[in-house]
């Protein structure tokens, strides 16, 4: 008896272009944006999720979640969902979803609104991005 087993195992690779988003040190009230790129190699449908560790927080308080949002533009022809601009960070917030392919780049854009009601301070937060196959 001869048996042959062959299969294309589910494989997923994920990387982002930077681990730091620094809006700089002189943000006068206004609206600012910064972007990063997430690249996926996947032989199944996939999605990228983001979870915030908390809101942007400084010694004097936090910047409300609604002032710090995200939007995504996924790879053309491979994207089944992309978070619209203005999406608030939460727990396992869906950023982008797509079909299988290689070097699938998604531009993830952060949008920060600094109104006059935000006290001068240094604020920070951490976001965790996770890619999964589905």
């Amino acid at each position, binding site marked *: 008896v001869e048996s042959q087993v062959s299969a294309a195992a589910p494989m997923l*690779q994920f990387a982002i272009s930077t681990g730091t988003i620094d809006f700089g040190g002189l943000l006068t*009230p206004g609206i600012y944006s910064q972007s990063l790129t997430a690249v996926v190699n996947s032989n199944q449908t996939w999605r990228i999720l983001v979870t915030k560790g908390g809101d942007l927080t400084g010694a004097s308080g936090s910047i409300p979640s609604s002032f710090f949002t995200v939007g995504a533009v996924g790879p053309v022809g491979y994207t089944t969902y992309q978070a619209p601009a203005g999406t608030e960070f939460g727990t396992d917030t869906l950023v982008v979803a797509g079909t299988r392919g290689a070097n699938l780049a998604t531009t993830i854009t952060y949008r920060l609104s600094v109104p006059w009601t935000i006290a001068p301070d240094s604020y*920070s937060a951490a976001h965790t991005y996770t890619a999964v196959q589905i």
Partner: protein
Amino acid sequence: MKRRTKMMALTGVILLAGFMVLMSIGGFAANPETVNVSVTVPATIQMNMTGMPVSYGSLVPPTTDTSKTLGVTISSNKDWSLAVKKGGDLSDGGVNTIPSANFLFRGQNPGAGVTIVTGSYTQFGLADTTVATGTRGASRTLDVNYSLLIDWNVEAAAYSATHTYTATNP
């Protein structure tokens, strides 16, 4: 033949086991990545004024003109104060001046978040006089009224002066 069959079967088992392992891995998170976000917001204040320059034209004595008003709009991300000082009294550039007591100001019409400090007519000083204070926020508003008395003791001439308004959020 038996040995070959065993080898093939063993190879199949190994491949299947590997496949099952990969299957179990593939369905879970891969490479969680952390992005650290930082932003620094400095103390910032902006002031806009309307009603400048203040030009009275020709005033015939005796008269007290209270028609001139400056509109002040302040945006600040900290509590703030507004002060004014004069560079000097109204002067014709020569020996004639209009007495300080004749040319007064006061703060009026405070919007939300604004407290008038000098609410009654007061002489301009050479040092800063606080007109109003306010809380953090956008577009806080108030008016500054001027009162100018031209009596018969004022020499007929063209007079001018400069006032400096300073908004701070220390």
